[in-house]
C-alpha cells in the first residue's frame, strides 16, 4: 500500500522517457514535436501530483471544508499548458517552413541536403 503512493511518479518517469525517446529516435520532425508534448504533459503530471493533499478537495473555498490541495502548482501548470501550445504552434510553423524549403521533414533528408 505504501508503494501505491509512488505510482504517479513512476507513470511520470515512464511518460517522460516515452516522449524523450520520440524526440531523439524518430527522424520525423512532427513526431519529434508530438514527443515533446508528451514530455511536457509528463512534467505537468509531476507538478499536479505534488500538489495533491490526501482527503483534500479542489482549491475552491467553500463553507464546511477545511482541507484543500495546494493551488500553487495548479496555477503554474495552468499557464504552462497555454504557453506549451503556443510554443508547439511556433514549432509547427518552423516545420512547415522547413517542408517548403527542403521538400521533406525527415531528419536525414534535411541533413543530406545541407551537406550538398
Amino acid at each position, binding site marked *: 500500500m505504501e508503494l501505491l503512493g509512488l*505510482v504517479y511518479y513512476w507513470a*511520470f518517469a515512464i511518460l517522460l*522517457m516515452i516522449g524523450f525517446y520520440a524526440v531523439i529516435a524518430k527522424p*520525423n520532425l512532427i513526431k519529434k514535436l508530438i514527443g515533446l508534448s508528451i514530455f511536457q504533459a509528463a512534467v505537468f503530471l509531476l507538478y499536479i501530483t505534488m500538489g495533491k493533499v490526501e482527503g483534500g478537495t479542489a482549491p*475552491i*473555498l467553500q463553507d464546511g471544508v477545511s482541507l484543500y490541495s495546494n*493551488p500553487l502548482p*495548479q496555477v503554474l501548470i495552468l499557464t504552462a499548458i497555454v504557453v506549451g501550445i503556443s510554443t508547439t504552434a511556433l514549432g509547427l510553423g518552423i516545420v512547415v517552413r522547413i517542408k517548403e524549403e527542403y521538400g521533406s521533414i525527415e531528419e536525414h533528408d534535411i541533413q543530406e541536403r545541407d551537406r550538398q
Partner: protein
Amino acid sequence: MIILFGIFLLTLLVITALAIVRSESLFAAVILTGIFSLLMAANFFLLDAADVALTEAAIGAGISTVLFLGALALTGEHEQGASRNRLLALGVVTVTTLIVIYATFDKPRLGDPDAPVHQHVGQWYLEKTPELIDIPNAVTAVLGSFRGYDTLGEVFVVFTAGIGVLFLLGIGPAGRPEDEPDQGLRHYLVPRVVGRILIPFIFLFGLYVQFHGDYGPGGGFQAGAIVASSVILYALLEGEARALRALPMRFLQWLVAGGALLYGAVGVAGMLLGSNFLDYSVLASDPITGQHIGIILIELGVGITVTGVLLCVFHAFAARGRV
C-alpha cells in the same frame, strides 16, 4: 478506490503514449494525442486540479489536435523509416527511466500533507485568499493577483509565440468566400446541423468560463481556448473564408495586442493611483472591490490575447494551405 481509478487512467496513458510513438501514420498519432490529453485531463481532475483539467481538455484535446492536423495537411501524413541508432536511444531511455524511478523512492507519498511542497507559500495563499481577495477560487486569486507578474509574463510569451507564427507563415492572401465555394463541410448534412446547434453554446460556455472564473474553475486561459475552438469549428464547417469575413485577420491582430495591453494597462493604472505595478487594491475605494475589478480585467485581457493568438495561428496554417 480513487487510487485504483488513478492507476487505471495512468495505465491507459502509458499505453496511449506507446501507441503514439509506435504508430507509423502521423494522422493516427495526432488523433491519439487528443485521446492522451483527454485522459490526462481526467487524471488532473482526480488530483483535485479542476482548473488545470479544464485547460488541458480545451487546449490539449481541442486546439492542439486541430493545429497538428493543419500542419500535417501541409507536410504529409507518413513518416519514413526509423533512425539508425534506435538501439542506442532505447538504451539511454531505459537507463534514465530506471534512474528516475530509483529517485522517486525518496519522494513523499501521494497526498502526504507534510510534503515539503505544502510547507511554504501554498498554505499562505489559501489562508489569505478570503481575507485579502475574497473570491472562492484560490487558483484564480493566485493567478490573477498574488502572482500577477508571472501571469503577465506568460501572456507575453503567448503573444510572442503568436507573432512568431505569423512571421514564419505570413497571413496569406485575403480569401473571398465567392472565390472558393466548396470550402468547409457545408455539403455534409450531419456536421452542419450538429455544428450549427453547438457553436452558440460553446461560445456561451466560453463566456461563462471567462466571467465565472472567480467562483468556479475557469478564467481567461480556458475561456480563450473555448471561444477560439467555437470559431475554429465555425471555420471548419462553413469554410475558412467565411470565418475570416466574420472575424477579419486585422481584428484578430488587434485582439492579440489588445489583451496583453489591457493587462499591462491595469498594472500601470495601479501605479498611477499611487501603488505598485499590478496592485489592484487602489482601483476602487475599498481594497477588496479593487481586487475584484482588477482580477476581472486582467482575466479579460488574458482571454482576449489567448483567443486572438490561437485564431491567428489557425488562420496562418489554413492560409498556407491555400497558396
